[in-house]
């Protein structure tokens, strides 16, 4: 029990930071502490939380996926063109883009696995490719006017006082929950951790490493595609420059959430909290109205430093206390 608590320390620390931040903001701005702010936090960061879930899988397995931001951008452009210009029904377009993203992720995973290339390089290439293709499709911002979009943005779970749990937020919560189940409760999830612990050992244990790797990158790209759909719902448009740098926000959220960049340890819930902390900073800045939004970046940077230092520290402690060996019964 004590041990499992100690494994959760980084997540608990993130939770503490989030709560402390929220309380601090509420002290400064009394109307901050409202259901409305919380609901907006969920809606505004839905797409980021969705990619962060995929990124958590990738990073725990010892990899990285730099292509997700570009995949979101590509998705919005594709959806806008498909729905507005090519007359594809929106739901059909959603299915299509998810299939394309799955193929894209699977291809990256296969290249990483079979050519034994570093994930960093392969997904960097994927990032340029996806961004390049979306420019090729269109360089302008294309508004999406389909009925479904108007309908979906109306559709929401309403609370008293006018706060709404929107469709993007609902999708995000579903993805976070499903991600937690997949990572923590299935064989696939255990294999993901094992890969991050030792790739070679995992292969020797008779795990299909190739299949697992391909699946991990497929999952990440599909979730990036889903995030793209959510992003396009949120903005009702498609633009090839949207979501630039989101991969870095996602990585930051995952690390702030207590996942080790070197792989092997981490939790989905931590990544979710990491996203929420970034959202909190953003919200504070918009409440303030005077601060430049670049302060959000600065605050995120400082937080990252603090969390990485904290992780190294707890890791060090854990390693130290762990050296005592166990005994054998005759």
């Amino acid at each position, binding site marked *: 029990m004590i041990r499992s608590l100690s494994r959760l320390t980084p997540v608990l620390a993130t939770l503490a930071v989030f709560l402390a931040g929220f309380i601090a903001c509420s002290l400064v701005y009394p109307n901050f502490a409202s259901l409305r702010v919380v609901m907006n936090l969920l809606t505004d960061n839905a797409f980021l939380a969705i990619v962060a879930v995929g990124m958590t899988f990738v990073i725990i397995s010892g990899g990285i996926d730099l292509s997700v931001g570009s995949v979101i951008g590509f998705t919005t452009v594709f959806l806008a063109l498909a729905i507005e210009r090519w007359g594809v029904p929106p739901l059909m377009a959603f299915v299509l883009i998810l299939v394309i993203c799955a193929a894209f992720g699977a291809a990256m995973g296969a290249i990483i696995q079979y050519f034994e290339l570093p994930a960093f390089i392969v997904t960097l290439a994927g990032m340029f490719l996806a961004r390049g293709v979306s420019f090729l499709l269109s360089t302008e911002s294309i508004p999406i006017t389909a009925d479904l979009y108007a309908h979906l943005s109306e559709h929401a779970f309403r609370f008293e006082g006018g706060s709404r749990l929107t469709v993007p937020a609902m999708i995000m919560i579903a993805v976070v929950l499903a991600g937690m189940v997949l990572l923590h409760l299935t064989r696939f999830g255990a294999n993901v951790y094992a890969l991050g612990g030792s790739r070679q050992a*995992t292969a020797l*244990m*008779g795990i299909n490493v190739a299949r697992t790797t391909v699946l991990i990158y497929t999952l990440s790209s599909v979730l990036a595609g889903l995030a793209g759909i959510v992003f396009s719902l949120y903005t009702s448009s498609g633009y090839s420059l949207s979501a630039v740098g989101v991969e870095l926000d996602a990585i930051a959220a995952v690390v702030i959430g207590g996942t080790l960049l070197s792989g092997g340890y981490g939790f989905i819930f931590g990544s979710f909290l990491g996203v929420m902390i970034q959202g909190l900073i953003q919200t504070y800045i918009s409440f303030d109205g005077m601060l430049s939004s670049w302060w959000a970046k600065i605050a995120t940077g400082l937080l990252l430093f603090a969390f990485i230092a904290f992780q190294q520290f707890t890791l060090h402690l854990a390693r130290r206390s762990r050296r*005592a060996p166990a005994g*054998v019964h005759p």
Partner: protein
Amino acid sequence: MLATSPPAAGAAPDLLALIGFSKSFAGFTALDRVDFTLKVGEIHALLGENGAGKSTLIKAMTGVVARDAGTMRLDGIEIAPRSAEEAVRAGIATVYQEVNLAPNLSVAQNLFLGRQPTRFGLVREGEMRRRARALLAEFGLSIDIAAPLESYSVAIQHIIAIARAVDQSARVLILDEPTASLDAQEVEVLFAVMRQLKARGIGIVFVTHFLDQVYAICDRITVLRNGRLAGSAPVADLPRLDLVRLMLGRELSAATGRRPPHEARAPSTAVAAFRGLGKTGYVVPFDLTLRAGHVVGLAGLLGSGRTETVRLVFGAERADCGAAQVAGQKASIGSPREAMALGFGYCPEERKTEGIVAELTVRENIVLALQARRGALAPLSRREQDAIAAKFIRLLDIRPPDPERPIGLLSGGNQQKALLARWLATAPQLLILDEPTRGIDVGAHAEIIKLIRDLCAEGMALLVVSSELDELVTYADEVIVLRERAHVARLTGAQVEVPAILAAIAEVPSSASPPVRAA
């Protein structure tokens, strides 16, 4: 050379048959048309010197290494697994020589990774833990199975790997040096399990460098030499001397005899002396004096505190009480760096997993510690490095004798020799060796014992942890016996004999309480 004897009438049928296995790595022939037959319910020893090709044969069998030629039949049906996964599915479970578990996963997950009990696609955690406990109980191990694997010692990790493979073995179980980090007691437990499997008709391939174990449990022996089949015969037809000759291709050089009688030497100067050194919950405080030209041996069962003692001495673990004197001066040893600065060297037991830098060459690995001690400002010249590497490759018979080969490509035993060389090269005043001959073949054993004696004669102080009591008594001047994390006996001079050590180890423990374990 012994030919493969024709199958006797009425003998057990062939379970696994390999024909003409060949494998070369970039022009180097590791396996050359090797045949191998395993019968139903047979324990088959696969023997050979370090680098003979045993591990390569095993990996070629299970598809981890793609073989160049050869066919393989299981129960008469041709199979060709291309990965460890396919081999397991065909019924062949393996414990590879290198660590093959995920350090970050829990013990239970490691035991059942890829085959966890599930319901509706979800892992049944409770059921998995229950099975994990039951499985480990067969090996006499009761540990916290929810703890991450890395929190346990190498020996326990090895038992866990064995337990996993045993549980998976449907037809064939392959064990590549499973006993290299186990103690006599655990080896007995393993043997009991192997006998059960044998009775169920499972064929077992067993690689080891302990010849006693071969004669204790195996039915048949196959010997490899330089990648070729040197011979195969029932155990009864291959007495020890013939076996050694078959493995080495020559007679074993002597040098394993008792060390020359202890003359009443004037007590030499103390290199280091420790008073009341200890750490709560780790090792009970002890006194220890290490003298120039003296070998102090540490004996005891696994977990008795031997490795813990040397880690305290070397500063790898911080003592919370006690005082140290080095060369007559009061000293505080808080870290391995400080210990090295004082002229200590420590070749750890876990060198297999911790010590090697796989990408660096043999030469670079050998000079690593020496260079670290000299500091970055006093680099060793290439000529010096070459000379040191050449010397130790010759002394320890590292094969292939190529200093520029990345060490990761050497066989397990040869990697260990190179790591031993790393610490020998620093020529410390006090050298600490933890199980120096583990995983090393019979031929090289003798060389290493001889080397220990020579170092001693040159005036080095040695502290050696060893479970090989027969060997320990040939070079130790003093043996300290540990039990339950305390130094319980100190044998000197003529008392240093195997029966005396065994008696001290076996003395009825003060309580029948379970062993100490991390909270």
